[in-house]
């Protein structure tokens, strides 16, 4: 179930499951919590994702075999890790995105129904990656799964709420992006002046609340 894979001379990949689902996510989160609570000497960074954690280390101080041995010890204790109850984060959304109509048409529903479905679901932050604060959210209602744009936009405005495949998310910065934009949040997602930095953290539960133009 767990696979260790050499990723580079300064990183080791740990795959914790094949499927993208809550069980795999909880294994990722538990291993991350152990790696944070009991840091391995020489480890410089951790990159959690849907079903994996990339462990980045100083290649002079550490080596793959030692890290694998220590992580195997953590894996033996994984079941005993008790995760804190998820934080619940509400994201206010003005549902007026440029792709809202297209998404509705693709599913043969009214835009109001897209909003209703999107804002009534509860999502989980599988991980934060790509750019600071970008949360990959699971839990999108199946009826809303929508393929990405064939040509990504060169610039997606900061705060855009979007659907990409079976996932949804919020763009924390002006970046390129291929997801379909259904709305916008006025809140700052990644704020270096806040203690927690990112509004959305791995493991959080997220709800979107429709608001009128702020």
């Amino acid at each position, binding site marked *: 179930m767990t696979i260790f*894979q*050499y*990723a*580079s*001379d*300064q*990183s080791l*990949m740990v795959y914790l499951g094949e499927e*993208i689902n809550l069980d795999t996510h909880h294994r990722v989160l538990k291993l*991350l919590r152990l790696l*944070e609570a009991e840091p391995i000497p020489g480890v*410089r*960074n*951790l*990159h*959690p*994702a*849907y*079903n*994996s*954690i*990339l462990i*980045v280390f100083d*290649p*002079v101080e550490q*080596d*793959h075999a030692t890290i694998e041995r220590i992580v195997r010890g953590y894996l033996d204790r994984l079941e005993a890790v008790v995760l804190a109850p998820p934080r619940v984060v509400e994201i206010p959304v003005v549902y007026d995105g440029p792709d809202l109509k297209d998404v509705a048409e693709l599913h043969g529903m009214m835009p109001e129904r897209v909003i209703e479905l999107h804002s009534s679901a509860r999502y989980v932050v599988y*991980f*934060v*990656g*790509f*750019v*600071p*604060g*970008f949360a*990959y959210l699971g839990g999108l209602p199946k009826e809303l799964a929508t393929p990405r744009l064939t040509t990504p936009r060169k610039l997606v405005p900061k705060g855009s709420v979007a659907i990409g495949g079976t996932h949804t998310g919020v763009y*924390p*910065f002006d*970046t390129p992006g291929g997801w379909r934009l259904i709305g916008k949040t006025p809140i700052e997602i*990644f704020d*270096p002046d806040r203690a927690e*930095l*990112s509004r959305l*953290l*791995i493991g959080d539960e997220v709800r979107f609340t429709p608001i009128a133009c702020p």
Partner: protein
Amino acid sequence: MPVIQVQSPGMFSTVQDLGRWGYGPLGVSPSGAADPIALRIGNVLAGNAESAAALEMTLLGGAFMFPDGGIVALTGSDFGPSIDGTSIPMWTACKVRPGQTLRTGPTRSGARCYLCVAGGIAVKLLLGSASTHILTGLGGFEGRQLKKGDVLKIGEDPVGRQRTIDSDLQAAIAPRRTLRATIGPQTDWFSPASVRRFYESAYMVTEESNRMGLRLEGAELETPHSGQMTSEGVSLGAIQVPAGGKPIILFVEQGTTGGYPKIANIIAADMPSVGQLRPRDDIRFEFVTPEAARAIDIAQHRLLGEFARR
């Protein structure tokens, strides 16, 4: 506090140090100097700690006036530095008297030149680092590249004695055009023929290259699973092959995760060389085993450690 007045910023100049480590779970990549060896040595020459913040200039340097004077050391690629019209050497600590202007021009060698100042460049640290992350506008000097009229504060870090560098060390750290690489996490997804093609071909760095990544032009590679896969953490120096088969080297401002298969990964010791690659430079890749990569990394670490301690 002594300052530096930016009279012209050059083509693309940012404040960098050795990066912002440990924030991968928040999606924050380390950023930091594209050629960290040049930054480390420049700092040591100027009498700073290796990790002090400095200016990273790209392809074309700028002009910087020192109203209060200072001690500078320029390292990396030769941008033809001069003080008030008199040439000064690269890789050497030089005194700038109050009111003098340091000028740098177009590169005579690689992509990046570092201007290290005794005391370091003082900016507000973000997550423990002065590095600029351009894509997100975080860190560095107001989160952006420098522009005319900016005033940079020179730091008050303790300054030790200035140092010189010998030609042996300089030769040993000269940027490479043949980059050594190990397997990456998806190397076995590619056909043996594709992997052979990758290592036997010359690639050219394209204009669409920056601190996030370098796009390469050359032998196209067959892309497994049409270039799609479940997003996962990606390593510095990973060579990913998206649909279309043109490889991309992930660089210091990389996304922390990505969803393209990776055919190889440049070794840590050769990443500073990537920071000196210019558009249209030709490069090749040389396969090394994990054991060889580690030995090279350790040898380089010892070399730089001995220099810093001397």
